[in-house]
């Protein structure tokens, strides 16, 4: 039930933030050369001549009725614009999350089982580097290496899964790596430290004493108990990835939600910015909710009253 005030606050923030930046959507649409009359006419047509509180109440009323308005620049309903871009961002985020988990977890486990070995130190050094490199720089590096030099993969654009599964994967590999690798590094570090803690625990000593094979000890006993920490990171990684998608989508020219929001801000497309912010904050709220519920499932000690 706390979701409702959270949404309201987000809505008000979304409405206010974009209007705090100087810039007039009508002037952007018509360009520097437009006459003041033409701009005023367009402002009236877009409803921007109303006082701000009136605009806010009108917008909020429509949002409650499930109507996000119409994009100034694209001329289509905000919801359609978002739904059209959502599959791209979801595919990218999912692929990046998969990259992050499949890179981070095995490396973390491996490092924890051989603490302070050269492979551990190497992996953790790589993780620090991976965490520190900004995703756009990583993206451009991947473009130069795998796109331009080796010519293995396309560097821009998106192919829907329905049109060509191979094309879909091809176009998603580099952006997913650029987006997922820094998070993979974070996951590796968290996995390593919580695995180390678990491997030193009494139940692991007991398991070893029982004569269990090492893989069973690490995989079944220790790893299961670190899952909750890993899951926290994966949950927050999902949110961070959604944010990072904004940059990576621009670098790789993917027509996703991030690209849409960046463009909408640059064009002062108020309804679209508001709609996107509202939707993204909803997603963040839902992801947090899902993680909380999963906590309870994974750790019997947690019970929500």
């Amino acid at each position: 039930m706390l979701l409702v005030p959270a949404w309201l606050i987000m809505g008000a923030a979304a409405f206010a933030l974009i209007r705090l930046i100087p810039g007039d959507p009508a002037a952007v649409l018509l360009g520097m050369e437009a006459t003041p009359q033409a701009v005023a006419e367009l402002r009236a047509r877009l409803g921007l001549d109303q006082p701000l509180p009136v605009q806010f109440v009108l917008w909020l009323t429509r949002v409650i009725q499930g109507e996000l308005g119409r994009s100034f620049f694209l001329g289509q309903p905000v919801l359609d614009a978002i739904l059209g871009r959502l599959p791209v961002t979801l595919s990218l985020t999912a692929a990046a999350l998969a990259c992050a988990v499949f890179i981070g977890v095995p490396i973390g486990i491996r490092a924890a089982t051989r603490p302070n070995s050269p492979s551990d130190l190497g992996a953790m050094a790589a993780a620090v580097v991976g965490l520190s490199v900004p995703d756009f720089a990583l993206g451009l590096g991947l473009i130069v290496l795998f796109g331009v030099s080796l010519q293995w993969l396309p560097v821009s654009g998106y192919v829907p899964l329905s049109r060509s599964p191979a094309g879909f994967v091809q176009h998603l590999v580099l952006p997913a790596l650029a987006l997922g690798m820094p998070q993979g590094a974070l996951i590796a570090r968290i996995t390593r430290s919580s695995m180390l803690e678990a491997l030193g625990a009494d139940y692991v000593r007991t398991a070893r004493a029982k004569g269990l094979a090492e893989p069973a000890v690490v995989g079944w006993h220790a790893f299961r108990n670190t899952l909750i920490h890993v899951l926290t990171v994966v949950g927050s990684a999902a949110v961070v990835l959604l944010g990072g998608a904004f940059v990576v989508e621009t670098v790789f020219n993917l027509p996703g939600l991030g690209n849409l929001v960046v463009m909408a801000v640059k064009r002062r497309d108020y309804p679209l910015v508001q709609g996107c912010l509202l939707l993204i904050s909803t997603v963040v709220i839902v992801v947090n909710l899902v993680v909380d519920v999963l906590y309870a499932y994974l750790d019997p000690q947690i019970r929500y009253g």
Partner: protein
Amino acid sequence: MSRRSLIAVLFVFAGVFGWAPGWLASLGPSPAAAQGPKILRVATDTNLPWLDPHMGTAFTLRELSSHVFEGLVTIGEDFGVIPQLAESWSVSGDGTEYTFKLRPGVKFHNGRTVTAEDVKASIDRFVQFGARRGDLGAVQAVTVVDPLTVRISLKQAQGSFLGALANPVALLGIMPKELVQGAKDPLQPPQLVGTGPFRLAQWVRDQQITLQRFDDYTRDRRIPASGLGGDRSALLDEVHIISTGESATRFAGLERGDFDYAMALAPTAFERLRSSATLDAIVLKPFTQVILQLNANRAPFNQVKARQAVSRGLDMESIMRGVTGNQPAFYRLQPSLFFPEQRVWHNTAGEDVYNRKNVDLARRLLKESGYDGRPIALVTNRDIEWLYRAAVPVQPQLEAIGFKVELVVRDWPGQIAQQKEGNFDMATNGISTRPEPTGFDYLFRCGASYEAYGYCDPEMDKALAAGVREREPERRAQAYAQAQKQFYETVPLVKIGDMFQLDGATKALKGYRVFFLRRFWNVSK
């Protein structure tokens, strides 16, 4: 387990870095090997809110419109007016009546033949709602004389009338009557029907515009291809104009062969393109004049001497080097408000003043202007990087002659807003190529537009009025030479230099010729 986890790690890495991409690449369609229709893939940096040629002045829209639509007349290679859909025309003795004969049998993309009714409906709509309706304010009535003859009556003689009809900045394209009549808002595809060599096949907003060859295109064989007209034809089956926001991504895509043509690359890509075995560097020339706008509505630039001080205090060469990353291929220093390529309009008035930096003179002028030392706001933005690079060297140069300059960096909408509010003293900006002088005289006319920012000079107004009134092209050109002389005396804004744009193309592109707009007709691959 440790061995197994190691294998897992190795597997993931091998999969991600080594084996998978090669396998995937072999599965997907290889761009180089694509057979079938001849498709030109063009990466662009801009997106459009609508594609209606009448309703916008955006640079990309000018280019797109020239492929899809045609006017009665258009612009030739030397920027003079040439016929397009008009077979011929005659002008009444007093210059108030233009009678156009249409070329017979010209087909719209929907298969219908163009008639005088369509011409009337298109002009009527443009005069009422078009983005450049002010240029055609003199039109009193458009009359259909017979199916292939249309007469346009003007309220008074207007020498710039044909140029205004031909101007591709908001192109007065002829569209079917049933689609344009009374259309107040921008038309959307599939209503965007023209007579050009390409038809608009598909538009996915912010992603791709697909042009398709119009098989029934009515070629104009009277004169060889020239400027935006003459004998044009689509040699390509399709042109895909693909939105790609990042210039580095456009360049990488071009190098990889994902694109055949990439617009607006960073000047730093020039050497790499020139030394490439498969790619060509294309310098889009002319492109734009880099200017410094001055707000004459308030002190200090309401004083002509303060404006002159700016003009004489700047070293244009050093600024243009900054703008272009020190690449002489991308700038030119010449005084004219027209490019030398615009042979009809170019002149050299003001060459004794332009780019003649004189610190002592500038200091004296500034002192005489009564400047009180208040910091002046120089507004620029980083969305259009060259505008920022133009502003950076201006600041120290003006401080050296006694101005206090505060650099205000916004994004592009922020800069537009700040200028429209009049809350600035200077701003870096550009004037893209204007084929018709009336297309940018609002920058200098008394009270014509907010964009003159308070500048008003009776002599300038007289010269500009003559440019509109005179009907002989030579006398019009003289009027604009006079206006340019006045420009250097009264400094409504400061011209810094001409800037060109770098594009890249595959060497497989045949027949491409540089003009101020990109042209993909008469081009093959």
